[in-house]
Each structure stands twice: as C-alpha cells, then as structure tokens.
C-alpha cells in the first residue's frame, strides 16, 4: 500500500488591512470556504496528504496612527474539521481601512506570527507564514506607536533578533525544517532584505500601493503548495 507523505500544516496569514488592500482581502474572503479543500486537493495531486491543517490570521495596520493596529486569532483547525465557521467569521470581520501612508507595522505582525503555537505533531510538519502587504514596513528599531500589551512581549527590538528567531533560536516553536515564509509584497524594505536573505523564503514582488491586485488566487495557492 502506498505510504505517501502525511503532513501537519500550520499556516499564519499576516494580512495588511489598510484601505488599499481591498483587492486581496476580497480574494481571501471569497476563497475562505474553499481554501482548505483546494489546498488538500492540490497536495493530493503531488501524492501528499494533509493529516491536519490549522490557520491563524494576524491582521495589521500601523501602530503609529491606527487605533486598531493589530488583531490576531488563534489557530483554527480547518482540516479534518468540517466546521469552518469560526475561521470564516474572523476572516469576514476583516475590514480594510486606515493607512494612506507608508510604512506599516508588518514586521510586528511577522514577529507575532513567529511566536505562534506551531504544531509538533505527526511525521512531517510545515510552519508557513504568508505575508500580504502592498507597503514597506517600519523598522523595529524605530519603535513607532504604542504596541498593545497583548503583543508587546512578542515583538523584538530589531531585525537581527527577528532574523535569529527565523534561523531557529529557542524562543519560538518554529523548526528549521518545517518553516516557510511566503511574501506577497513590494520591492521595498524589509521585503527586499528578507526575501533574498532568510532561508526557506519565497517572495513575489508586487506593485506598491495597489493592494496586490495583480496577485491571483491560483498563484497564492500554487505558491503555498509548492513550498510544502
């Protein structure tokens, strides 16, 4: 009997929810119900099966001038579960607003994503962070705005510390073999640094300020599937 490869997959979507991001947020909302099945089916074509799929979302704006600068969900189990209601509810609550200027607090969101309670179950795991943004990001050293108490302890002081976490220090449950970072973002700081330097990373440079309107769902799905 074919053994195939069975995966426990955690995905954290970091989504810029400033006003310009309406195009990609609409894609996410339209596909929220079908995404788990689409992912499962696409992996099956590569003779890989999903034992468990969990999805978490970190929605961010700009701590410098947005009162609702960050919201983060727990992991929602979407496979093998058939109840997607909590996951759908969180996604449907995302409302693009604010922003209007660059940069945004994407590195803070990335830090919160790194600190997720990643799975260590099963034979093979994947810890995947998918970043959606059409803007550059504040430097962590700049310490812009007031970070809420919920997230303060999760955010390091500089990009070097963030990089150390990615490379596998013990402050996070990410594992080097399981980690993947997929960036849909412009050719600007920090994506042009991280995209070419961090291990296990894929970066699709996109047009700044256009809400990733040129990124199709099929591209997002293919990029996630091929990274697994």
């Amino acid at each position, binding site marked *: 009997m074919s053994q195939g490869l069975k995966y426990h997959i955690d995905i954290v979507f970091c989504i810029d929810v400033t006003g310009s991001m309406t195009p990609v947020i609409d894609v996410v909302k339209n596909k929220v119900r079908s995404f788990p099945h689409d992912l499962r089916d696409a992996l099956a074509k590569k003779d890989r099966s999903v034992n468990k799929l969990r999805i978490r979302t970190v929605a961010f704006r700009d701590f410098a001038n947005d009162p609702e600068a960050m919201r983060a969900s727990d992991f929602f189990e979407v496979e093998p579960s058939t109840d997607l209601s909590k996951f759908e509810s969180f996604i449907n609550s995302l409302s693009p607003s604010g922003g209007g200027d660059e940069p945004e607090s994407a590195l803070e969101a990335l830090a919160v994503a790194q600190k997720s309670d990643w799975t260590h179950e099963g034979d093979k795991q994947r810890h995947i962070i998918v970043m959606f943004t059409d803007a550059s990001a504040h430097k962590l050293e700049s310490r812009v705005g007031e970070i809420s108490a919920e997230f303060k302890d999760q955010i390091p002081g500089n990009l070097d510390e963030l990089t150390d976490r990615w490379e596998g220090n013990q402050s996070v449950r990410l594992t*080097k*073999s*399981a980690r*993947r970072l997929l960036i849909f973002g412009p050719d600007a700081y920090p994506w042009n640094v991280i995209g070419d330097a961090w291990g296990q990373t894929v970066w699709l440079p996109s047009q700044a300020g256009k809400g990733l309107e040129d990124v199709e769902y099929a591209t997002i799905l293919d990029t996630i599937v091929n*990274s697994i």
Partner: protein
Amino acid sequence: MSLAAGHETLASFVTEKRLGQGEDGDPIACRYPDLGDAVAVFDGMGGAGATQVPVDSSYTTKEGKCSMAYLASRVTSTTIQKVIGQLGSTNLESLKLRIEEAVKAELAKLAERPEGKGPEPRLRGTLLHDYPTTVALAIVRSTLHGDNQREVKVYWAGDSRIYAFDPERIIPLQVLTRDHTETGGGGDAPVERYASAAGLDLDELVYLLPSTSAVIAMSDGCYAYLTPFKLMLLLVRSLQFSRDQNDWVESVKNEIAVVAGDDTSFAISFGEGGYEALKRRTKTLYQKLEPVMFIPETSETNPFILVHDKNQYQELFEESRRRCLTKSEEVSPSSESLSDDTPVLAELPPDDSATLTVVTSKDVLTKDDSMGSGA
C-alpha cells in the same frame, strides 16, 4: 528498465509517480572500457524547482511547459554521461571538476532561454533555485593489484545516495554517502547542496570494497519510504525469488513503486560474478531474515535493531516463523520492556535452538569486517 552497456553486470530503472511528470532523470548504468562501471541517479528538486518553464526538445518529447526540476535532472544526466564518455582512460582526477563545469554551463543555458527563469512576475527567494537537482555518481573499477578489490569513487550533491551491497558482511547494505541536509540522513530537513544553474559543488569519497560487492545508486524515492531493514529485505528476498536479472530488477522496481510516494531511480553495478553470484551469496542471509521479517521494527524487541529481553525475543521469533509459513500479518509485542544495556544487533539462531548470540555495538564493525575507508 534498461539492461545498460555491459549488461551482464549493470542494470537500472526509473519510475514516475505521475506519468509524464517524473522529475528523476535517466539513471546511468554503463561500463566504460577504459574507466570502469558508472552508476548514477538524478532527482530534480520539485519544491525548489517548481517554476514552470518551456520544455527543451533536446531532452524530452514533452510539449508545452515543465518544471525546472524536470529539465534539470535530465540535462544533468545527459551532460554527465557525455563528460564521462569523453574522459579517457584513467583520468579520474579531473572528473569532478569537468562534471561541475559542464553541468553548471548546461543548466545556466536553460536559464538564459526566453522565459527560462519562469514567467513574469518572477518569484524570488531562498526556497527557489534555478534548475535544481541532486546528483549521486559512483565510478567502480578493479584495482590494479590483483587483490580482488574494487575501487569505488563516489561523487554526490544532495540526498540521492550510493550504497554498497554485500550480503556476507555484518551490515549487508551500507550507505557510502552522507546526505547534504542538516541531519545528514533521513528526516525532513531541506537539501543544502545540489546542482543548479548557479553551480555544482560535488562531495567526493573513495572506498576499497571486495570485488563481489555490488554498488547501487538510489534516489530518495527508493529508500525514504522503507526502513533500512525493509529495504535490505526487499533486495534480498526479491533476489531469492527471481528467475534472472531482468526479473529481479523488474521486481525491485515494482515493489518499491508500490510503497513510494515519489518518483524512483535505481542503478546497480553487480560486482564480480554478476547477478547470479549476488543471488547465490544472499541465500544464507535470506534464510536468517525470513523467520523474523514479520516482527515490526517499531517493536522494542525487533531482533535486528534492538534486543531488550531475550525471552520476549524468542517468543516473537517463534511466532514470526510460524506466521512466515502463512505469510500473515506482523507479530505484536506482548509487552514493552526497555533495558539500558542495549545490544545493537542480534545474530539469529541458525536452527531451532533457543540460544541467541547477541552482538553488541562494539562488535558490529571490526577492522576486518569494515567496508572500506573514506579517503
């Protein structure tokens, strides 16, 4: 499956998990009169090389587009065959450099074609590489000293492997390469060294093996879905039940393909006496393996991996031997007991006696039984 040049001593096969999309290149199993036997496999890296690019009709009859990995393994296989064929009599010293330069040049040419790096907008990042593939190559030749030995030079990048297969050794199937992953073998770690349009840096070792040792190249599709014991058992058992070389290679191909969740490629240089001698030499080993092949390897009392409790082992051994006659399911252990003083390998009782000879880790590889030395 191909018989390959010098067919009485070489054979190979390649399988595609999905027809027309296989990313393992054609294996090499060829005798070069002035050089020796060459066995090699090439496994295109599907994740890192997933970008869709135009096909190249020089290497495939496929139309339209294919993955970079699909082309990379095929181009690398063809290129290395050409390099070896042009090498000349004994000039192995330059082989590594010639292969590296030629492969880099050919893979770079693929990247320079229109849309050779994929469609715009182009994905970037460290997870992706242009035309990535593993390489595992062994050049096997008799030594000049008439001492019944073969020199085996292995060259590799990635997690495709070269094995030595000698049924009369205490460890019959041994890996001669070390995977270029963080762990060095097995697991899920990413491959850190491979051929690509950016270049190739082959690792290299040399061994002296008995002339009767077979040398096998395998992609991870062959070994990653079987434990080392089950892989060895598959090779040994299928040898015993095969009619001839063709039948054996076909049997290995089919049995591995049933369990593999990946493409597979395999190439073997049989060694002195060819297939017939190898079959003859595995007879005794098979007689030892057969009674225990139903004991599950996850059991703490597996006799080939761990033996913790002699009485429990004997109980399982007897049950497994009974079940072997009916070819039924694996035997379940009746209890779990662990011991700190854990022997590594157990010699099976040759007859019905209850006596066990347990070999501890320090006895596993003695100087006389060592497979060879890395250079």
